[in-house]
């Protein structure tokens, strides 16, 4: 019983029932329509035959009087078939014919009518015919008709056929519906089973994809992409907590050591002060790491800050101006080429921070390794098809191709740079912000040096300026 209830509750069953009903209704409509049409056509044909017959007999009357009509009718009656004839006087006295016991109203009717009649040699007047009464000029009534029992039989056959086929249609509809629905829903069941396994914690599993590329496959593919993203986020979270444990321990230990030293320092106030300043410095460094981690987390969760249409060129010019003096102070030749008026949707603060991070890196790590090369830093912002491309290029040692993806991860610092101050979060933050803006951060070989490229979709509101004549690229050197 409960198994039956379960069956009733399945979508497959419901779909099958609905399909059967729809099938049955549609089939009934078709058959009823065909029946009506067939009957109409047959009656029309009978009517035409009757009219032709009447015309023929009327002609014979005109030629040879009533005698010839009687002969003609007698001849026709002898032939087997469903034809019905009756010639009467005007008062209704039958002269010749094969129909009797007609209702009195029939003889005075006009046009094509259905009537009952009796054939000679038959007991009852239960035959039906389609007849027409024609008044001959000599006050005779001529009834010509055709038996419709055949038509009735045809209708009966059709009705039976409808009944039978209806049953078959319902059965086929139900079985077919059940089969189709089962096929689809088996896959859905398989998906929900896999989903249950995944929910229990095995995020490496994926939903089955049939390979036919239909809606269910697309659904499965999208859900798989979602699971992959969740898996990546979880892995990221785990990595972050591992890394936090590792990377915060070091500065926290230093902080604690410094505080400890300060506590045991009894002598000079100057030394004590210096140690305490170190403590505060370490604490500030920790705060920065927290801030960066928070910003990355926000950007990656996709629930980041408000986005608006921004003039990227203006922001780039602003940040370039902010860093120009610092570059000059370090003897770095800083140049920027910023195509004006480039728009993109984004958050001003975050885009500025990305550029600032990349420029920070350029200043910090962009010192040429080879002697004779002057330190150089370039900020280039230009349109690249339908994207805005921001790049920061230096002449430093660059990043080996094998490490380019890895350095974008949190807390990753290459051996060569470990001695320099830094948290290993700058590029991760830039990459997370680029992703939030629908773009990506790529590291390329600047031969020699590093080129960090961020690209994001260009916005077109308000409409782009027509004809960027002369490409008014503003350039400056610092």
């Amino acid at each position, binding site marked *: 019983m409960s198994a039956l209830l379960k069956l009733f509750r399945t979508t497959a069953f419901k779909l099958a029932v609905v399909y059967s009903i729809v099938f049955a209704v549609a089939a009934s409509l078709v058959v009823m329509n065909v029946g009506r049409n067939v009957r109409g056509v047959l009656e029309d044909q009978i009517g035409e035959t009757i009219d032709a017959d009447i015309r023929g007999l009327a002609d014979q009357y005109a030629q040879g009087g009533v005698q010839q009509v009687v002969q003609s009718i007698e001849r026709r009656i002898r032939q087997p078939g469903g034809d019905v004839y009756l010639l009467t006087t005007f008062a209704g006295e039958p002269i010749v014919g094969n129909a009797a016991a007609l209702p009195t109203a029939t003889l005075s009717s006009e046009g094509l009518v259905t009537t009952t009649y009796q054939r000679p040699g038959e007991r009852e007047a239960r035959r039906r015919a389609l007849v027409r009464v024609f008044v001959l000029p000599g006050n005779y009534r001529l009834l010509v008709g055709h038996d419709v029992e055949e038509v009735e039989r045809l209708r009966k056959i059709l009705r039976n056929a409808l009944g039978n086929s209806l049953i078959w249609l319902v059965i086929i509809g139900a079985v077919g519906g059940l089969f189709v629905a089962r096929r689809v829903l088996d896959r859905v069941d398989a998906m929900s089973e896999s989903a249950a396994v995944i929910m229990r914690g095995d995020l490496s599993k994926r939903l089955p994809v049939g390979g036919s590329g239909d809606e269910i496959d697309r659904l499965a593919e999208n859900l798989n992409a979602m699971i992959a993203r969740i898996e990546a986020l979880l892995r990221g979270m785990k990595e972050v907590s591992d890394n936090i444990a590792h990377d915060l321990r070091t500065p926290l230990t230093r902080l604690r050591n410094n505080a400890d030293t300060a506590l045991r320092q009894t002598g000079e106030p100057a030394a004590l002060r210096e140690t305490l300043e170190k403590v*505060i410095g370490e604490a500030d460094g920790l705060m920065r790491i927290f801030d960066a981690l928070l910003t990355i987390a926000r950007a990656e969760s996709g629930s980041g800050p*408000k986005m608006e249409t921004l003039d990227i060129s203006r922001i780039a010019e602003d940040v370039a101006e*902010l860093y120009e003096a610092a570059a000059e102070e370090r003897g770095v030749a800083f140049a920027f080429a910023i195509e004006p008026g480039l728009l993109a949707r984004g958050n001003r603060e975050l885009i*500025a*921070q990305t550029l*600032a*991070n990349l420029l920070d890196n350029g200043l910090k790590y962009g010192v040429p390794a080879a002697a004779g090369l002057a330190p150089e830093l370039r900020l280039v912002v230009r349109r690249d098809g339908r994207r805005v491309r921001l790049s920061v290029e230096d002449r430093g040692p660059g990043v080996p191709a094998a490490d380019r993806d890895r350095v974008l991860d949190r807390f990753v610092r290459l051996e060569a740079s470990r001695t320099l101050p830094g948290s290993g979060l700058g590029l991760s933050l830039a990459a997370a912000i680029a992703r939030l803006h629908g773009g990506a951060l790529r590291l390329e070989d600047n031969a020699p040096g590093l080129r960090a490229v961020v690209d994001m979709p260009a916005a077109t509101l308000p409409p782009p300026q027509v004809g960027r004549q002369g490409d008014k690229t503003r350039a400056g050197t610092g």
Partner: protein
Amino acid sequence: MSDMRLLVIEDDSEAAAYLVKAFREQGHLAEHAGDGLDGYARAAEGDYDVLIVDRMLPKLDGLSLISSLRAQKVETPVLILSALGQVDDRVKGLRAGGDDYLPKPYAFSELLARVEALGRRKGGAGAQETVYRVADLELDRLSHKLTRAGKEITLQPREFRLLEYLMKHAGQVVTRTMLLENVWDYHFDPQTNVIDVHISRLRSKIDKGQETPLLHTIRGAGYMIRDGAA
């Protein structure tokens, strides 16, 4: 600039005690309210120069407290302290009626500089003046002219805004983040000493060859422009 009356509205009693003590050491009169309702009542009645409001408070949260005060036409400057430091949080805080926003954790020197800047703002002197003067340095905000001892000095537009902000807060410590926020309108923390370099460029323009330097570096805090003699 000392002797401001401050109200610290903060539910963490240890943090509040630390702030009150630190402000008193700086010569200010600081009081403490432990929850939103108490804070609101005292802020609405008392005559404070600056309110320091924690964003998350029991009984009445910080932002509602500020909105209520503003609705009551209490215009005491408010600095919001918050554990939420993202750009949107800041915008929300300022929209509620806050005058400045400082995410936790913060350095006390940063908080002090900002509170003093707000206290000065209440006086309203800085905002309306069209000419700022510090010793023989004169900055005309309308004609964008700068003179020192009568001699004109040419500044880049950004340098002008930097000096304008420093002179508006003459005699007060201005931190690097305050400069980045108010002159460049950025709230992130650059790893490179970009602000220091801009300051040193500005310094070379206004103090070079002068007997008394006006633009001073305050160790561990920031910068201050003031008459060397004062």
